[in-house]
């Protein structure tokens, strides 16, 4: 006899369905609004998907099949049909300027354009070739359903696959906020803030493996919090953590720092509390073993494949998803030089990184919302920080969870700067990776939950205060739609 659901479980499920539909609907709007190829690296990511779907193989890490072009002829031909190169960062024409997509243009040909399969072949996965295949294999399913359709239909279908992942991410952000505050109002506010957040919606509505990484990392953040908060940590929870950590390594390793946190939290949590010391130690060992085994089940096939396909004799694979050995080699620039360089960039750089690039920089990072929006969002950080301080001082029960989420957010920022920007790039080449706001979205759900918590604390957890957050998020979303419509389509409101 199936266990009867409690009224609270029913309400949470109801909320999750609604959050999913809002997140998906918003992303479908973005899928349609973003002109084809007008998001960072979309042609490359789409090439990877095409390579998997059309040629049935994971793209090569090295030269690939030189009989085919780097990017499919079908894709490069489409740029002329679409006239997008006259507007977007793909290539504005010199000497002439078009303020927006041409009004006088044969878009019907663009909508119907499709090339034979021979023109869809690619050498490998373009600039995305180094990434693990999980996201692309998932998206290839959507591509394949529309195999005989025009190119744009396949592109939009692939974008829709990302949108689904983005919508699911909103559901996990709901669960994370619920776990933090045990309040449906908080959870709804956090989830709707993510559902409507312009930059997150923009990225997860395009062909980009970030969509998969955001989903997995948000789910992992939630499970880490669950692991911390629950009195009893089960084998199922340990296995779940292991699976998610494994998935991070086979989607995009940018979220790798969460694996260390997950392992650490699991290691220190008491398993079924036992008076017998040996049983306590044994259960912790079993929990960690379950975690590691689950991670390896997901990752070993990919590690073996990469080791077998790596041509370099030293077995050193430096691109993401591979085996990395001797990463501490060849550091030519010191940490002090890096810090000096970062300080010299000035406040404008950090404003761009944490405000413009984080909340909304669209297209090929050339489309901005009005500057006053970013200034207002800056005040949001300040207000939330003050509120969090109030929360930490007043609400003892919320301290552990709040501090954990704060640690996740700040820890990820430090990892991106020190481990990625400095160690992998600046230390070797004297120039950083070129950090962008969306790289911090791994811990976006914890950040939004903290903002909601801080804001609510300032109003003594009055329910009306939290309801303002979805309204403000909707305004921000509408403003971002208006920005896109103005820049690309010449449509103006008010």
């Amino acid at each position, binding site marked *: 006899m199936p266990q009867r659901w409690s009224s609270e479980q029913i309400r949470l499920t109801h909320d999750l369905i609604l959050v999913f539909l809002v997140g998906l609907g918003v992303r479908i709007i973005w899928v349609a609004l973003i002109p084809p190829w007008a998001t960072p690296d979309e042609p490359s990511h789409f090439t990877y998907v095409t390579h998997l779907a059309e040629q049935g193989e994971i793209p090569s890490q090295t030269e690939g099949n030189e009989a085919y072009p780097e990017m499919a002829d079908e894709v490069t031909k489409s740029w002329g049909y679409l006239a997008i190169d006259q507007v977007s960062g793909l290539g504005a024409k010199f000497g002439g300027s078009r303020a927006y997509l041409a009004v*006088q243009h044969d878009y019907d040909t663009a909508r119907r354009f499709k090339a034979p399969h021979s023109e869809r072949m690619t050498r490998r996965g373009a600039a995305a070739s180094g990434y693990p295949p999980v996201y692309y294999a998932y998206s290839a399913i959507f591509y394949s359903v529309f195999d005989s359709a025009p190119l744009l239909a396949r592109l*939009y279908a692939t974008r829709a696959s990302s949108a689904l992942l983005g919508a699911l991410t909103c559901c996990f952000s709901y669960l994370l906020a619920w776990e933090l505050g045990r309040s449906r109002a908080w959870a709804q506010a956090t989830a709707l803030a993510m559902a409507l957040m312009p930059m997150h919606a923009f990225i997860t509505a395009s062909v980009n493996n970030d969509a998969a990484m955001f989903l997995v990392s948000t789910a992992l953040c939630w499970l880490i919090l669950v692991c911390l908060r629950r009195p009893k940590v089960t084998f199922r929870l340990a296995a779940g953590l292991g699976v998610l950590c494994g998935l991070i390594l086979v989607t995009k390793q940018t979220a790798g720092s969460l694996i260390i946190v997950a392992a650490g939290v699991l290691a220190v949590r008491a398993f079924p509390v036992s008076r017998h010391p040996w049983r306590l130690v044994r259960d912790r060992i079993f929990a960690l073993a379950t975690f590691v085994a689950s991670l390896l089940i997901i990752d070993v096939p990919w590690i073996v494949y990469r080791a077998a396909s790596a041509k370099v004799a030293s077995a050193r694979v430096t691109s993401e998803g591979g085996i990395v050995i001797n990463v501490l080699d060849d550091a030519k620039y010191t940490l002090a030089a890096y810090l000096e360089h970062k300080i010299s960039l000035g406040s404008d750089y950090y404003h761009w990184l944490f405000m413009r690039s984080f909340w909304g920089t669209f297209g090929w990072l050339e489309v901005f919302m009005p500057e006053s929006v970013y200034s207002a969002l800056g005040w949001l950080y300040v207000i939330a920080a003050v509120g969090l301080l109030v929360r930490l001082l007043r609400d003892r029960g919320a301290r552990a969870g709040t501090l954990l989420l704060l640690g996740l957010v700040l820890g990820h920022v430090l990892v991106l700067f020190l481990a990625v920007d400095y160690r992998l790039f600046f230390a070797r080449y004297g120039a950083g990776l070129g950090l962008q706001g969306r790289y911090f979205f791994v811990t976006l759900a914890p950040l939004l939950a903290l903002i909601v918590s801080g804001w609510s604390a300032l109003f003594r957890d009055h329910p009306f205060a939290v309801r303002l957050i979805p309204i403000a998020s909707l305004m921000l979303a509408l403003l971002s739609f208006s920005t896109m419509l103005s820049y690309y389509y010449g449509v103006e409101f008010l």
Partner: protein
Amino acid sequence: MNGPSGRITISALVAALAVVALAFVPASLPAGDNFGTSGSAARPIGDLYEGRLAVQEFISSGTEIQALTIQIATYGRHNAGKLYITVQAEVDGQWRTLAKKKFSKRKLIDNEFKEVRFRPALRVKRGQRIALSVRSDKDPSQAITWWMNPEHRAEGMRLTVDGVEQTGSAVFSVAYKRIAGTVGEIRKPLWKRMTVFLRPTGRACVAIAALVALLCFVHLVLWGAAPISSRELP
């Protein structure tokens, strides 16, 4: 009205009201391709004084020209006399004058982008050849000039000075009258423009997704969530 179906009904009504409210928002969209040549690599076209004529031809991509802008230079002087701007359209091989404007050269600012607005907008046809003529009176000591970009070449564009074709284009821009009204009034061309890359099925999917998202959002915001009591905490 407090039951689930009552709440859904109220949410649907509020969502419908939001859509109706959106219909009253003023909006505009382009009806033609505003076009402009950039000033990079620009140089003067030459002195324009009595008896000299510069003509820039282009192909119209809209149906109502609202404004034309040219970049002129005064050589740092306050020149006497007038600047004459004429707009003509080619009809059956003949040029027909659509508008004539004159400006005092004394009031011109060196290197300014001089905008000429037309009220009402000049009615032209898409694909029609248009000629923008600039001339000036008085002797060479009171000449002005028009900036040109020798590296800019576009289909259908032709620049002549005293009938002699020049390489490149003049620095100018064309602004077509926009389709304006409330969202409700211009909903068809607005929707078509916003979904220009989509086929009918795609447009339907977007519309349905947007409406469902709006309904779910309104429902979540309106009916919110009661805080869970401590007795229900695990």
